[in-house]
């Protein structure tokens, strides 16, 4: 992350008027100033608001259904966490669902990163006919809402007898226009054209250049795109609900949908299921939060 505070801010030239008292934000030399207590208060309020529902999921998951149906609602952990997790694990097939989701999200992330990188490289650095037209087309496809393809996709999946098979979820999202565009933006800045020309001079084929020049240069962006795609694929709801109808082979989201739909819902078990489905990503956030934040911000500027 680069803050744009310039290290070489001009030495305060004789000011025409006395500088106004220090402002928050940036002062007249363009330097960032410290946030005051109001800033901290507001941020803490938002932090609590962001984290509270998650913490409360864990609290509710550690209670009993009857305790949740009392006033006031519980504010601290109870002793039923493991029995609830156990019930969710068995009733909603959570073990299989977690494994399925990991496979689906992992494959989609890997495929998206690979295909987006090579296509992004072509759009960023290679010359070919219809390049701009094809690029516009790629960006245009981002406008097409997924609802629009669901009916025929379902027909295809039904015809191939893929309903309840993981490839029905994986294949349609194996590469995204966003990914291609993201990698193009990154590579057109991060990969010097001279490097490719030098490799060509040495007689390297395009595939060799991809392997030895593009992949190493693209690695940071590939990591970011991989993480973003993984989170998205893990949390995808709409298409899996349709493609995995029989719930014999669910992803986590399909399993949670099934849990929420029981006729006598046991809320604490549902919360335990929600916790199980969210936990892997939360752990990733604790471990790689900084990189994920950096990635999203980088994607925002370049994308």
């Amino acid at each position, binding site marked *: 992350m680069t803050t744009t505070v310039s290290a070489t801010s001009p030495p305060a030239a004789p000011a025409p008027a006395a500088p106004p008292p220090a402002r928050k934000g940036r002062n007249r030399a*363009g330097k960032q100033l410290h946030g005051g207590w109001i800033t901290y208060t507001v941020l803490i309020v938002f932090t609590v608001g962001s984290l509270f529902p998650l913490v409360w999921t864990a609290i509710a998951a550690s209670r009993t259904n009857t305790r949740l149906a009392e006033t006031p*609602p519980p504010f601290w952990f109870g002793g039923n966490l493991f029995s609830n997790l156990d019930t969710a694990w068995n009733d909603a097939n959570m073990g299989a669902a977690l494994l399925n989701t990991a496979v689906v999200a992992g494959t989609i992330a890997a495929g998206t990163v690979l295909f987006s990188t090579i296509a992004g490289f072509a759009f960023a650095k290679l010359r070919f006919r219809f390049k701009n037209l094809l690029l516009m087309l790629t960006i245009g496809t981002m406008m097409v809402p997924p609802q629009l393809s669901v*009916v025929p996709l379902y027909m295809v999946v039904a015809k191939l007898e893929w309903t309840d098979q993981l490839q029905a979820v994986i294949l349609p999202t194996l590469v995204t226009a966003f990914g291609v565009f993201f990698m193009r933006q990154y590579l057109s800045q991060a990969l010097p054209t001279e490097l490719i020309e030098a490799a060509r001079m040495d007689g390297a084929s395009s595939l060799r250049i991809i392997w030895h020049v593009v992949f190493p240069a693209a690695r940071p962006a590939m990591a970011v795109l991989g993480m973003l795609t993984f989170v998205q694929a893990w949390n995808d*709801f709409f298409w899996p609900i349709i493609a995995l109808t029989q719930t014999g082979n669910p992803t986590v989201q399909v399993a949670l949908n099934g849990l929420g739909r029981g006729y006598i819902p046991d809320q604490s078990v549902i919360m335990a299921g*929600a916790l199980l489905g969210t936990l892997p990503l939360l752990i990733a956030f604790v471990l790689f939060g900084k990189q994920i934040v950096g990635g999203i911000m980088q994607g925002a500027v370049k994308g």
Partner: protein
Amino acid sequence: MPTTSGTAAPPAGQGGAAPRRAAETSPLDPREQRRRERLSRRYRRDIRWSPYAFIAPFFLFFAAFGLFPLLYTGWAALHRVELTDPTHMEWAGMHNFSRLWDDEFFWNALQNTFTIGVISTVPQLVMALGLAHLLNYKLRGSMFFRVAILTPYATSVAAATLVFVLLFGRDYGMVNWALDAIGIDPIDWQNGTWTSQLAVSTIVIWRWTGYNALIYLAAMQAVPGDLYESAALDGASRWQQFVHVTIPSLRPTILFTVVVSTIGATQLFGEPLLFNGSAGATGGADHQFQTLGLYMYEQGWVNLHLGRASAIAWTMFLILLLIAAVNWLVSRRLRKSQ
């Protein structure tokens, strides 16, 4: 760096470096000549065709899973197709579309999509802008705040909605408990029209505010500092700097988030589906929070009318195109007026 490539043309003569010129000047034996021709043919073929090979996977996948379904949906919308036998199609002409025109549930869903879209997108983006501004200060633990407000983004629609269903419960929910503590009567969040839409919007706002804040923050950090400098020299207050420097510099980013959020709002599906508990895809007892996405799902996968679902999907697409066109006009206007 692949300087060790074995296929490199051997340096000719003493100068070495430029193989082409060397080939012109120094005589070569025919075998070497042929080898070079073969290499250069392969090289030209590589240069010419490999770009297409590199973008091919995307376009193949898009053709199979994007373009074909898009067109086929339009075709299916003109037919009577039932989920029970998706391969059997009966020509129906514009029937599915004309039926939508007289369908009060369609108009209801359209209106709900619009209102929920507005009350979830506007506060979300305004709060994100404010948050980004605060995060742009030099702060202790700034990374902690950034990660914390982004965490809801890692939560799935399903998990988030299930939690909020409990929090917004009529009898034992925490929101009503808190309202009671400050003397407000309990609210039936699920069954009221406005209240249920507000609750559904809350889930959207909760999940996406932090994400948008980070996008704004990234754009803010790219604003050159001397803009603030000269604004300060002109005696602009902090608020004036925010309005006259920050917001205009962020205009493309704001437009981008508006477009993305609008697309997201048109497609809203998981939140209203799960907020209804076990009652299914109706979006509440009175359809009070049924969105277009949900209505399409109900028509296709609950009532089994895939043709009708296709017609709804295409209508949604046309609405999106309309929004995009308006957006484009507005942004062009803004750019001109600058």
